[in-house]
């Protein structure tokens, strides 16, 4: 498979064309904005974290490239219902996958994240895949300032 076909797998294209959990979140109690100055991509993440630290609901808004849009869309699917601590660990594993060893986080329900393993061969696109993740962490940390991936 060509490197770029490995990058633009059908699942990524599908989430780009029809992003899931896209739009505002009525019951949000956490949110943050992220910006990638390199490509001008902006993302806003909305979270509902319950009293037990579980992310009960996740949505996002913003425009971006296929990689960043699909990353946000898939993130919103696979992290919904997980506790905050686990989410932070998953981000570490995800980041490692696309920058270092290319293996997906070994947890149940996370196989979709594997589609991003091809990003490793495109170092300039790593920020596209991680923008929404950094923004998510910013929201969880309840920090005011916009995340910037530069």
């Amino acid at each position, binding site marked *: 498979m*060509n*490197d*770029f*076909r490995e*990058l*633009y797998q059908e699942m990524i*294209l599908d989430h780009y*064309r029809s992003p899931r959990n896209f739009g505002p979140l009525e019951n949000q109690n956490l949110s943050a904005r992220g910006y990638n100055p*390199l*490509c*001008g*991509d*902006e993302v806003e993440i909305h979270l509902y974290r319950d009293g037990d630290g579980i992310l009960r609901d996740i949505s996002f808004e913003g*425009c*971006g*490239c*296929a*990689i960043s*849009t699909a990353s946000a869309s898939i993130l919103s699917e696979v992290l919904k219902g997980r506790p905050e601590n686990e989410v932070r660990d998953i981000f570490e594993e995800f980041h490692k996958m696309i920058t270092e060893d290319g293996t997906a986080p070994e947890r149940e329900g996370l196989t979709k994240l594997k589609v991003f393993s091809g990003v490793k061969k*495109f170092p*300039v*696109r790593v920020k*596209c895949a991680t923008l929404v993740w950094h923004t998510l962490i910013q929201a969880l940390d309840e920090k005011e300032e916009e995340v910037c991936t530069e």
Partner: protein
Amino acid sequence: MCSLNRQSRIDDPGATSLDLATVKSLFPCLHQQVHGNPLVYLDSAATTQKPISVLEAMDGYYRENCSNIHRGLHALSERATAKYEQVRNKVAALLRAPDPREVIFTRGTTESINLVARTIGRERVGSGDEVLISAMEHHSNIVPWQMLCEEQGATLRVIPCSDEGDLILDELVDLISEKTRIVSIGHVSNAIGTVNDVKQIIQAAREMGALTVVDAAQSVPHMNIDVEDLGCDFLAFSGHKVYGPTGSGVLWGRLDLLESMKPWQGGGDMIRTVSFEKTTYAEVPLKFEAGTPDIAAVIGLGAALDFVKEIGLDAIYAHEKDLLDDAVAKLDQVSGVRIVGRPAHRASSISFVLDGVHPHDVGTILDQKGVAVRAGHHCAMPLMKHFGLPATIRASFGVYSESDDVDSLVEAIDEVKGIFR
């Protein structure tokens, strides 16, 4: 556009024939495979490739004449100084400047504009004054003025841009007044390729007594420039966009202004005498060249200007004009492609978007096909906002570009469309 005289090319048949095969063979970096495909370099507006003569000139300095300039009494320093100073004459000739002392070497356009803003800018712009730029400036011709205005309590005003991508010069009457102290305009837009009628803007500015600065980073590589005909006070360009090395740049300024200005950076080379009580400064241009410059880069720039002169800017302009017309026509034939900006007069670049595909994704796939373009905001975020786009894809051309490059671009776009179908 005064400086775009195609007639002279027709009058001089010697300048008409541009042997592309020969020209391209002079650029070693162009002859390589990228991701298994021959490189198609369409990013000359970011930086041009360098001909062998430039590489050899720089190498020659380090191998044979490596020494510091302007102070050594030994042979190497004399040779290096002579070579360095010759480039000043070459730049003056390129810009039709009356005096080589008007040529100041900088690191590039950005540093040149900052020099003007930080010296005469501070002297001339005060509280309540205005600085005028245009909606299509590169960040390097926005931010230095913004910083100056903030510092001095002045206002930054902007000549608006039409949907076609031309500056709306009818508004100049309202935008230029006795409050306007500096007008700084890009000659050619790096983002969409518009050639601006800077001469008209300069005239309007001069009538109100404003200083005029031309950001010629994107025009010097593509067309003849005559600073006296333009009538500007300052003009800035970068060596690396005109086949020279990075780290070489030029600020041209009118001699009387340069002589009246205080120095910018202090240090070696820019002084006449130094004591702890008082320092006296060197004459123009050394007054503005503190410290050891990038000698190799300036010598490389000299070789680049020799190369440009040998081919002739009229011939380069005509060749690139044909290519741009060809590329616009071919891109217009590709369904889903929308060219951003239809300026009346274009040079250097074409910006476009592809329906349903983000420019960054286009750029990544094009790169995999060996086609190097720029995808992004092109350091012109206000202009992107004007067009309602976060980014575009930009194809830009140089003397070595050819019609086949446009075909490769179109083929690669088809590939993108295949993936995103």
